[in-house]
């Protein structure tokens, strides 16, 4: 049993390193923070399935308090982003920890401003914090941020005179990544209403798409094999796990389990503690009840969640979150995907064949 702790964090530059380090890889992170400006994704690298509530109302855009290009980066990363007019809280429910304080999501909060916050793992307080953020997403007046909203927001945004300079991300529909993808395969470029522009090959039996993204001084190329039950069958049948594991350890490359539960075209992402190697081997010969073959009778979620915990695909303590996320859906399908990416970075020599 974990001891309850409460700690005060205060001073210039003392809080964001703790927030960044506290982000959970295992449990969904729920964050409500009023204002969002440059460098935010570095400070708070939220991932697909996490939740972020901000104030992106017209009055905040006109004063430059919330930067829609930065919000778009979170949306592209698969984070569920909401805008709530009048939000002034700064609350970070990160796994089993809760941080509440004065910090907005900005570079100035990290480096220039005197901030204070409290961090606790007290179970009931963490639960209340998670509930507060979840309720914000559902309350009247809160809107889910979509591409159309971001387009309008970018037109309304005025740079704050206190935070001028820098440059806008360039991976939107008109950015360099789309131009590059149009040169690579003009007939296969998809610019979805939600999510990042990408290339979607025809008849790919193993993966869905390729995308290009940028983050700080890096450019990332991503591929998601085994993303749906259908793709997983072909992918795992042919896979030699040690080859992909070896690739993931090569300079510039990364690969990690990206386990989804799919319902029609939407999906609930969960994290697993399995290593890449054991994850790949597990799905090559999955237990009978977790079969990969697409079925007319997909898994009923009530028993599926229990089985996934039993096989240690998801952790017992996150099963309530998973069950909550898929509640009300009549069935879900297993999507044992892998995230594979390559990063070009100014800090890393480029990969040479």
């Amino acid at each position, binding site marked *: 049993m974990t001891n309850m702790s409460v700690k005060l964090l205060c001073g210039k530059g003392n809080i964001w390193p703790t927030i960044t380090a506290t982000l959970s890889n295992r449990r969904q992170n729920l964050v409500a923070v009023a204002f969002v400006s440059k460098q935010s994704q570095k400070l708070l690298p939220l991932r697909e399935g996490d939740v972020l509530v901000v104030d992106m109302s017209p009055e905040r855009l006109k004063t430059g308090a919330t930067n829609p290009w930065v919000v778009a980066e979170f949306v592209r990363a698969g984070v569920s982003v909401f805008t709530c007019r009048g939000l002034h809280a700064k609350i970070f429910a990160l796994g089993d920890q809760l941080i509440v304080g004065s910090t907005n999501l900005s570079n100035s909060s990290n480096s220039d401003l005197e901030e204070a916050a409290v961090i606790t793992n007290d179970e009931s307080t963490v639960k209340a914090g998670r509930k507060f953020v979840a309720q914000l997403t559902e309350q009247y007046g809160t809107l889910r941020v979509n591409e159309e909203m971001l387009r309008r927001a970018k037109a309304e945004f005025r740079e704050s005179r206190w935070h001028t300079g820098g*440059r806008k991300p*360039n991976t939107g529909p008109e950015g*360099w*990544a789309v131009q*590059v993808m149009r*040169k*690579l*395969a*003009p*007939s*296969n470029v998809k610019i979805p209403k939600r999510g990042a522009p990408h*290339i*979607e*090959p*025809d*008849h*790919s*039996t*193993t*993966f869905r798409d*390729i995308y*290009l993204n*940028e983050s*700080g*001084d890096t*450019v990332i*190329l991503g*591929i998601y*094999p085994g993303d749906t039950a259908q793709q997983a069958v072909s*992918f795992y049948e*042919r*896979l*030699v796990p040690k*080859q*992909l594991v070896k*690739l993931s350890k090569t300079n510039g*490359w990364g690969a990690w389990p990206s386990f989804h539960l799919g319902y029609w075209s939407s999906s609930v992402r969960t994290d697993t503690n399995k290593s890449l190697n054991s994850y790949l081997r597990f799905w090559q010969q999955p237990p009978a009840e977790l079969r990969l073959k697409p079925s007319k009778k997909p898994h009923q979620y009530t028993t599926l969640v229990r089985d996934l915990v039993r096989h240690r695909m998801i952790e017992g303590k996150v099963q309530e979150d998973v069950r909550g996320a898929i509640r009300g859906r009549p069935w879900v399908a297993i999507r044992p995907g892998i995230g*594979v990416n*390559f990063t*070009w970075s100014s800090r890393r020599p*480029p*990969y040479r*064949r």
Partner: protein
Amino acid sequence: MVITPPSLPEIRATVDIALRSWGETMIWPRKGSKARLRVHVVDASHG
């Protein structure tokens, strides 16, 4: 900070490396062609 995107050959080669690790290859459209992007299985053993 200015990012220089990787070149097209570099991107193609990178995608091919990933696909080869699970036994596939990409059939890239020729320059200027509107042919569609396709994936092919190259070798079931892909050693």
